[in-house]
């Protein structure tokens, strides 16, 4: 309970409440961007530093491999479920957001572990970085395959002009890979991790007063804004209907539990397992949407952004994190102690 009522989570509630009460409380956009840069830089440096100290062993490689693969594969499963009710492009876009991750959810889980005095490994941060982009490729692939099928069906009943659009698709793959891999959030996270790794103990000592000490306080401010933004987006979902809202909770849970299963199978300790579960179960509302606007301009961003931001994110930080943590304890996973 005490872990649930931590300042960051309470500031998230405060933001949500302020929006619901129609307060004019507002965080400027450039401030939100600053906080976002700060959190990515901080967690990247910390993860890199921990990798430098802890080293990369077989288990680390296994976890990073499983994480990357899940980001590729899970969208195919989510897509199949979503197609039940949605068009191909919207289904592919939502599937992509769920295959990828939410860095803010991750750092909230990190703060949760920190409060509980439980440590975690640097390669979980690396796993987060590795999971950002593959899902984007899968999502676009899914939409292209569906469009191809549709086109072939059309062609069978008419004939003509397919080579031009195939060409069209080819040119855009290049842009897609750039967008997927070189999204600002990915570049900063990976770059900070590499810098943390390369500069090690010495580098960490010189920056930790900025990137570590005030971390949880900054997170409060950012989650206040996330509360404001998430509550505003909930309204967008009224039109989307109960299926999508339900999907945002249930599918987060399904993927989160797959993550728990993977963590148990990989023999992770409780802290690392929680982070893997939350990576699996979280959905992207920053990096993936930015890439999808270009890669899938036909998909409706007023569906896939509000779902990830207004439903799945609050679910994960309020319910998911403590629940997975409890579950992992109940499953007998041991926590490593220390920051």
């Amino acid at each position, binding site marked *: 309970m005490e872990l649930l009522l931590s300042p960051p989570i309470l500031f998230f509630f405060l933001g949500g409440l302020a929006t619901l009460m129609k307060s004019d409380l507002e965080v400027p956009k450039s401030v*939100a*961007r600053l906080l976002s840069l700060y959190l990515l830089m901080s967690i990247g440096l910390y993860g890199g530093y921990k990798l430098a100290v802890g080293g990369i062993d077989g288990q680390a490689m296994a976890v990073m491999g499983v994480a990357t693969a899940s980001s590729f594969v899970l969208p195919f499963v989510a897509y199949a479920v979503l197609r039940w009710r949605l068009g191909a492009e919207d289904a592919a876009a939502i599937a992509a957001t769920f295959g990828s991750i939410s860095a803010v959810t991750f750092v909230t889980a990190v703060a949760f572990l920190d409060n509980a005095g439980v440590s975690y490994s640097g390669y979980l941060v690396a796993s987060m970085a590795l999971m950002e982009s593959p899902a984007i490729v899968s999502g676009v692939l899914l939409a292209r395959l569906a469009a191809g099928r549709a086109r072939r069906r059309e062609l069978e009943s008419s004939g003509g002009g397919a080579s031009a659009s195939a060409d069209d698709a080819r040119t855009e793959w290049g842009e897609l890979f750039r967008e997927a891999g070189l999204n600002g959030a990915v570049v900063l996270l990976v770059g900070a991790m590499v810098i943390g790794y390369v500069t090690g103990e010495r580098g960490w000592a010189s920056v930790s007063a900025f990137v570590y000490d005030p971390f949880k306080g900054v997170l409060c401010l950012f989650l206040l804004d996330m509360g404001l*933004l998430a509550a505003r987006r909930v309204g967008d979902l009224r039109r989307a209907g109960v299926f999508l809202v339900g999907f945002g909770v249930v599918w987060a849970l399904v993927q989160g539990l797959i993550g728990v299963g993977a963590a148990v199978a990989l023999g992770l300790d409780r802290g690392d397992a929680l982070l893997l579960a939350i990576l699996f179960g979280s959905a992207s509302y920053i*990096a993936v*949407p*930015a890439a999808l606007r*270009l890669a899938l*301009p036909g998909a*409706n961003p007023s569906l896939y952004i509000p779902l990830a931001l207004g439903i799945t994110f609050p679910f994960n930080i309020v319910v998911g994190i403590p629940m997975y943590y409890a579950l992992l304890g109940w499953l007998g996973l041991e926590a490593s102690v220390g920051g």
Partner: protein
Amino acid sequence: MREVKRIEIVIDKPHEPKVRVALAELGVPGLTIMDVVAGYGDRGSREGGALSDAMMNRFLLTTCEPGQVEAVAAKLEPLLRRYGGLVLISDAQMIRNA
């Protein structure tokens, strides 16, 4: 003072580069870009920028010769059809340093 056509464009920020390429190909003599705070149109409301540019609009102002209007419209129409947005064209008199 010279008669010109004044062209205003509202486009999703992620698609702005494509519009800039199109304008460069049309050879417009200059361009002024401003941030859009919020907006709505056929595709619902756009209000963003806090987390990513995905839901942000941009506003572009440029000019062309009166005789060029058809070419501009022909170039921009396909972009609007694919990506949404708005183009407004009006008459103006221009003063420049030349």
